[in-house]
């Protein structure tokens, strides 16, 4: 968990600049309005000198909370019109270009998504997801108070005894400040201070939404920055101890 303020390293609105838009052009899917999903051996056609860094993120949260939908929105792909519980592990690699200081870096976020049912029934799934995870993303719903109160115990359970100290990210789904939400903004703020990490807010998708990429860009940038800071702190520690 970082003590640094978000937005201090990563250019939060770089994707909307001319340079960012030009790079992002190579990420869109010509057959849909969204972005492309890249296979394990594929890369967008971007300058080869752009460095790539890869991270594993494990998404945790109650069944039906919107984990799969959140990942699909981050990836910019179409998600099924109706809700289906995720069967087993579904992993989506999201390629996301980010500008850190003066350098463009391609983040490969490997998002591990598991249906709650498979997780409970099969013992091999949790270790497979947690092993070597760089970050754990805890998902709750602004419209379901119980999922919010379970956050802290869940975070403690997942990160305790984990020698790799994964970065902790919290995302609240069904965020809609226009209505009376079960979890208030003040409570979310309190949690942010306690965890020293921002609570990312995911609104409800309106169909046919344009500029979706610019809606999720700030969230993805924050996640990338957290992972980047975690690496820097790790390197710093290594440097001090050697």
């Amino acid at each position, binding site marked *: 968990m970082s003590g640094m303020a978000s937005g201090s390293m990563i250019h939060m609105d770089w994707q909307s600049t001319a340079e960012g838009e030009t790079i992002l052009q190579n990420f869109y899917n010509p057959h849909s309005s969204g972005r492309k*999903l890249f*296979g*394990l*051996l594929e890369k967008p056609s971007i300058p080869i000198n752009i460095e790539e860094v890869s991270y594993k993120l494990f998404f945790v949260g109650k069944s039906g909370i919107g984990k799969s939908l959140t990942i699909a929105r981050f990836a910019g*792909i179409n998600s099924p019109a109706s809700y289906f519980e995720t069967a*087993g*592990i579904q992993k989506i690699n999201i390629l996301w270009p980010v500008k850190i200081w003066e350098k463009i870096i391609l983040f490969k976020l490997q998002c591990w998504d598991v*249906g709650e*049912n498979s997780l409970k*029934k099969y013992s091999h799934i949790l270790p497979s997801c947690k092993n070597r995870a760089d970050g754990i993303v805890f998902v709750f719903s602004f419209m379901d108070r119980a999922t919010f109160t379970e956050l802290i115990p869940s975070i403690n359970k997942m990160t305790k005894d984990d020698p790799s100290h994964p970065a902790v990210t919290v995302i609240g789904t069904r965020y809609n400040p226009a209505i009376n939400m079960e979890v208030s903004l003040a409570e979310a703020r309190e949690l942010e201070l306690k965890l020293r990490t921002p609570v990312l807010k995911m609104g409800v998708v309106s169909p046919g939404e344009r500029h979706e990429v610019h809606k999720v860009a700030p969230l993805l940038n924050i996640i990338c920055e957290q992972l980047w800071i975690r690496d820097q702190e790790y390197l710093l520690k290594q440097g001090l101890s050697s």
Partner: protein
Amino acid sequence: MVSVMCLTTTGGMPLFNRSHGNIDTFSFSSMASLNGVHMYGKSHNMLLKSTATEDMTIVWREFENSITLIAAGVTLDEQTLSELSQAVFNTLVMFVGIEELRNVKNVERLRKDLRMSFATIEKLLQAVDLTDTTGPNSSLLNYTAVMLPPDPELLQSYVDSWSECVASMFCCVIIEGSLAAASSGWWQLDRVDRYLLSLVIPSSDASTSSDVPVFLPVKSPTVPFRLVSCTPMQGIRIVALCGPVPDLYQFEQLAIQAWKSVIDLLNDCAALYPRNIALSFVFHESVLGFLLIDDMLGKMAISGSVSGHRKPVKCPSHILRSFYYQCVHDMVVEKDETAKQTEIYWCAEHYKTFAVRDQDTVLCLLFSSVVPTHAMRLICKETLVQISQDKSISW
């Protein structure tokens, strides 16, 4: 438009209700009545199998004395709805295992567990729904979709070495939703298992890789396997049915190693979509599309664009599917060999179709309406001979 309801047989407790197309989901009270009339029959030693209204057929099926399925559909016959119910039940076995369905201890828990199967059930409903002409729907119930790529032996050799590399007898490669090649073990699986596995494998634009626990309804209904797959390039899915190892991370590494050098070959296959048959295979100029079925192995190939440029009919694969469900299906399922038809045709305003059967193989061709009706039979028969003899494709 089709709908399936699932209830416990003993208690009549509803487990789920899924529908596809423009159909009103059955209300709780109509579900209860439909189940009630079936139960009433049972208490009088009568088995209610099906009924029909003006535009709808309803079929009741009971499984393992524990699960009742009620299927209702528009434009579908009893046979198809009965097959659909069987396929839905097999899907439930695939996700939760037979034991949990035989002995329902906790209805609430079973209801939750069954939710994992909904995405696959959706695909089954889509496969029989003829009223859905919106999407590129080209699936047939109970048949694994395959494609006929060029150089099948070369691709086969790569699948065989992949099978060794990942230490699984059951491997295949899916390209744009159709099976392009599979290990011999994959073909030795029961056709029911093979078909459902092909539905559970996610499409390459839905996830990068996946690891799904599955029971095999015929081969292994009590012990689960892991259905692991990944996408090296968009449109291509590498699959293996695994035991405890390798884990998903190792699986990806193995797949990258094994397929890195073969990407060009796979991309060539992907470029065949939606023709789905090697370019070297030339059809008669009047042919617009084809549907090829092997009833023994439970596989089928379909294409609505063999001619490439001309598109005189709107939705070729939709016509072929309708032709199959309304005519050819009876020809295939007829058990009595002497009563089995071998040929059947349709003539419509804008197109004609002809189907010919040779033992377990059925070829349906879609023609433009200009073709003389008497010529279709010869073209169809010759094309079937050509397909079975052509060495550059393998059927």
